[in-house]
């Protein structure tokens, strides 16, 4: 329990989860090394534990010292706007472009090995439709979900993660991704674009709103959960 409280303090203080876990584990291992050392010298178990406490101090001292070192703050705590608002948009764009290039490569490979895409089988038609949905719905939700998950783990304030979700979902709502495979004899095509029409704003806006809802609802629920846990840890 003490460890989880100290872990919570480290995370809330801006120490990265991996570093916090490692420091606490090193500290516990060090303590057990001191106890072993004292036991091997003939001390009783109680005296060995007292010696460990006196030499090492408590985990609270470790946490205080770590929190007093600004260098140990994670870069996401120092630049949350970059980590949770701009970086997610960059990752979203990179994944979207990467998926598009991968599909282009797959279509070219298919043509090179199996000839022209005359009458693509229905399975492929289904896969291409699935890829379209994955690109327009899945990527924004997965990318923004991954970043809000990171924000939860790091106990970040909600401002920048929410801004990141809104940005991704707005851009994601305006993206189009259509992979058309020929059903009889036509040229295969891949249409990718981003656009927003003032004449028909409802489809992209409703798609963006749905994605925001799907991503932010679990995030806000999880935030409430760890906010409560933080209060209990402080008690």
């Amino acid at each position, binding site marked *: 329990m003490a460890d989880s409280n100290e872990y919570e303090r480290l995370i809330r203080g801006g120490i990265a989860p991996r*570093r916090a876990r*490692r*420091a606490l*584990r*090193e*500290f516990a*291992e*060090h303590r057990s*090394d*001191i106890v072993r*050392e004292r036991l091997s010298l003939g001390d009783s178990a109680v005296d060995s534990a007292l010696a460990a406490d006196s*030499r*090492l*101090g*408590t985990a609270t*001292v*470790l946490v205080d*010292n*770590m929190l*007093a*070192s600004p*260098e*140990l703050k994670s870069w996401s705590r120092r630049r949350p706007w970059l980590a949770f608002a701009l970086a997610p948009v960059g990752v979203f764009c990179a994944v979207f472009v990467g998926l598009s290039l991968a599909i282009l490569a797959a279509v070219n490979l298919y043509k090179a090995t199996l000839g022209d895409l005359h009458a693509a089988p229905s399975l492929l038609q289904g896969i291409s439709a699935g890829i379209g949905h994955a690109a327009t719905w899945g990527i924004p939700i997965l990318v923004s979900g991954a970043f809000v998950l990171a924000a939860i783990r790091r106990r970040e304030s909600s401002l920048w993660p929410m801004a990141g979700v809104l940005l991704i979902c707005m851009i994601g709502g305006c993206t189009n991704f259509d992979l058309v495979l020929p059903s009889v004899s036509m040229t295969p095509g891949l249409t990718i674009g981003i656009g927003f029409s003032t004449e028909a704003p409802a489809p992209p806006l409703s798609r963006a709103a749905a994605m925001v809802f799907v991503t932010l609802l679990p995030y806000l629920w999880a935030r409430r959960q760890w906010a409560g846990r933080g209060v209990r840890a402080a008690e």
Partner: protein
Amino acid sequence: MQTSSSLMSGISELLLLNLLAEREMYGYELARTIRLTTKDAISVGEGVLYPALHTLERSGWLRARRRVVGGRTRVYYSLTPAGRRRLGTMNQEWHRIAGGVQAALRGDHG
């Protein structure tokens, strides 16, 4: 005798870098080596050892890697090339200051 904490933090860094220049070590091993080699004259508070090691790692002067030794997982620290350069600078600085202090204690005023 109480030692100035800012002076001690610089000395701790110097000691840690010097010891890790010889071989990689884990925290408890470092604390024990400092106690033994300085004959208890300098004792780096073992509770503040890890913030210091993590700060040096974060600055790019140390690297940490996990190793399983005798069935126990240890985090071993070693110097990076940047850490070796830093150590060279710190050693020079230390010798300059120590030489100056010794000269003053001897009363070399001329």
